């Protein structure tokens, strides 16, 4: 992907996550969310939408993100997508969020399982990260549309990360994990390992297909 942009909500956590040099090198542009409505995204091959953005501002820009997909480019969504549920036209194509109570503490029990599995161990993402790098907690899951590619799943078959090339001419990467806000708050080492691999995967591998 030649040009990747990221939305920036003005919080300290987003600022750290997007400006950290090892991540910023993958970003051609950072778009401040309140200025998104007046921004031209046509130069971008992909737009990264971090978790925990101001829902009213993001909902207002739904059309711009849908347009990115319509012209065959990529949109990446992180985090709880139910907060953007008030869009009159619905949220982005095929995104169906299902809330799950968060178990922040599963890893304190040596017998416990995180509940997360590699649905496609051969997927190109797993050449960049391990399943452990994507394992901290999740706040919900997705029911991807038929034909979408579930990469990380829960043990009961719902998606934590999927790639959808069927619902639009573009590529929609949807991930219920929230790495930027945790990394940006100096919290949870796995989130850093996740971003260390996810961003180069997005920038260098995704366009080549699974």
């Amino acid at each position: 992907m030649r040009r990747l942009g990221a939305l920036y909500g003005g919080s300290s956590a987003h600022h750290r996550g997007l400006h950290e040099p090892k991540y910023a090198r993958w970003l051609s542009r950072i778009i401040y969310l309140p200025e998104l409505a007046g921004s031209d995204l046509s130069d971008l091959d992909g737009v990264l939408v971090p978790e925990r953005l101001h829902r009213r501002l993001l909902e207002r820009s739904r059309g711009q993100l849908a347009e990115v997909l319509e012209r065959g480019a990529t949109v990446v969504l992180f985090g709880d997508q139910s907060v953007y549920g008030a869009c009159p036209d619905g949220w982005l194509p095929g995104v169906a969020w299902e809330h799950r109570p968060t178990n922040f503490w599963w890893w304190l029990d040596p017998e416990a399982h995180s509940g997360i599995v590699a649905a496609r161990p051969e997927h190109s993402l797993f050449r960049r990260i391990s399943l452990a790098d994507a394992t901290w907690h999740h706040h919900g899951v997705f029911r991807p549309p038929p034909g979408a590619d579930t990469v990380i799943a829960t043990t009961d078959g719902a998606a934590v990360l999927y790639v959808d090339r069927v619902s639009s001419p573009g590529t929609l990467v949807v991930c219920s994990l929230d790495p930027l806000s945790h990394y940006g708050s100096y919290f949870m080492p796995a989130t850093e390992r996740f971003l260390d691999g996810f961003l180069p995967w997005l920038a260098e591998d995704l366009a080549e297909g699974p």
Partner: protein
Amino acid sequence: MDQARGPARDDVPVRATAIVVLDPMTSTDPPFDREPWRGEVEAVDAYELPSIDLSRVGALLLGAMVDQELLHRHRSLVESFLAHGNVVVFSGHLLRPWLPGCGAFVPKVIRSFHDYALSMVTPHPLYAGVDPHDLTFRRGVAGFFARGHHPTPPGADVLLALPDGEPVTYVDRRTTAGTVLVHAGGGLFDGAEPDSTAARVPAQLLAWVRTEVDRR
């Protein structure tokens, strides 16, 4: 106190008593919808800051996900609000210089979980009856409450500190005519573990803010 919230009379100036949270609108389950905050504070969309009638507001509460570019753009509003003797509480990492007296967040270099150990410095109603161990650890895991500090202005009262004395929570009554309480972490408004003394913090924060607002 009830008089202060009653209808305006010609001879009694209306006192600003509202406690307003600048809501970053990033969550479906914000802490301000829950006890002890519900009904006690007004959540206002953070982007409405320039249009809020601050003359009726006695305290502004701001959390970690708030847009600090916005606050920096409107820092004169914050300064003027404090110049009128009001209260500002910030629980987060300062990114831009919008809060008088507060230096930019400094993350702690962590070598072991001992580096997160918190201790009380000055007794304060915010942390009355709270065991600092319960702030440092949740279910045996350290580091939830604070992972760094803000350099404090001269004369600030430090309430809580990291092992090398880094001020994690402070109150500043000297820099402005108002009162600023800063906590270097996002967890001041959330109750943490319900069965630990850390759960006392939100209600004690609300009570302290109310006292500060009423005594101005």
